[in-house]
């Protein structure tokens, strides 16, 4: 009985995530797109919880659904969320056919793929006995230290880039002469 319930919850969350993703690209107004994206990220966070990745689920809620989406909403409020009129064109249908081809190829590659998985020892029981955050921390600071340092360097570079963009912006020559 528990197995069926777990599966139904996972399936419902997956379908909700797909519907929210469709809402992101189909809504005309950017503010509704941002709200659908928040819904999509919360669905993913709940799926992470069901896949025994509690720490990543918390980070997903705090970083994505919190910080990044607040930034998006702030920029939308600053620039004014105008509705966008979409008209069918050749580029649009070409994009659709290209992406559907890509989708089919992805599914085919997933079905055909003969890669051999390497299984680890961290079963859900071991993880819950140790704690998700502790396990991720031990892994991050022992075997993946270089990627951690690279990520921090990336954040530093992004900060410097933001300061440059904000500080050295200029008014265009046309508008200055008016």
């Amino acid at each position, binding site marked *: 009985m528990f197995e069926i319930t777990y*599966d139904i919850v996972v*399936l419902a969350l*997956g379908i909700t*995530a*797909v519907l929210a*993703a469709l809402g*992101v*690209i189909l809504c005309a107004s*950017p503010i509704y*797109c*941002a709200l659908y*994206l928040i819904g*999509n*990220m919360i669905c*993913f966070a709940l*799926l992470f919880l069901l*896949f*025994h*990745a509690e*720490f*990543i689920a918390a*980070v997903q809620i705090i*970083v*994505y659904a919190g910080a*990044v989406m607040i*930034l*998006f909403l702030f*920029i939308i409020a600053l*620039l004014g969320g*105008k509705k*966008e009129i*979409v008209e069918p064109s050749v*580029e*649009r249908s070409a994009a*659709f056919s290209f*992406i559907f081809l*890509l989708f089919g190829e*992805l*599914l085919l590659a*997933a079905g055909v793929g003969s890669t051999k*998985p*390497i*299984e*680890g020892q961290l079963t*859900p029981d071991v993880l819950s006995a140790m704690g998700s955050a502790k396990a*991720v921390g031990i*892994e*991050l600071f022992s075997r*993946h230290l270089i990627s*951690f340092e*690279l*990520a921090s360097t990336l*954040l530093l570079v*992004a900060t410097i*880039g*933001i300061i440059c*963009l904000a500080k050295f912006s*200029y*008014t*265009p020559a046309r508008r200055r002469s008016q």
Partner: protein
Amino acid sequence: MTLGNEFVLIISATIFCIGAVGFLIRKNPLIMLMSVELMLNSVNFLLIGYSSFLKSLDGQIFALVIMTVAAAEVVVGLAIILTIFRTRHDLNVDHINVLKG
């Protein structure tokens, strides 16, 4: 668990392709950035799902790194959009065809 890794693959591929379609058909750069977020999120979901199936934590570490990349990318992208809007007062990506301000 009867829902196996095929479920994770299908959901992830679907959302990745939805994000790619959104990136190609929308004209508002904010919504294009949101589509990129969708694609990154679907990859995160795949990594977490396989980290659970394979009983290894490597996928979760990769997902953390991808989250860092996504945060940096969003911040820089939004700053560029804001700079373009300050100089051109227009947000349609089809009208932005020169790099000169």
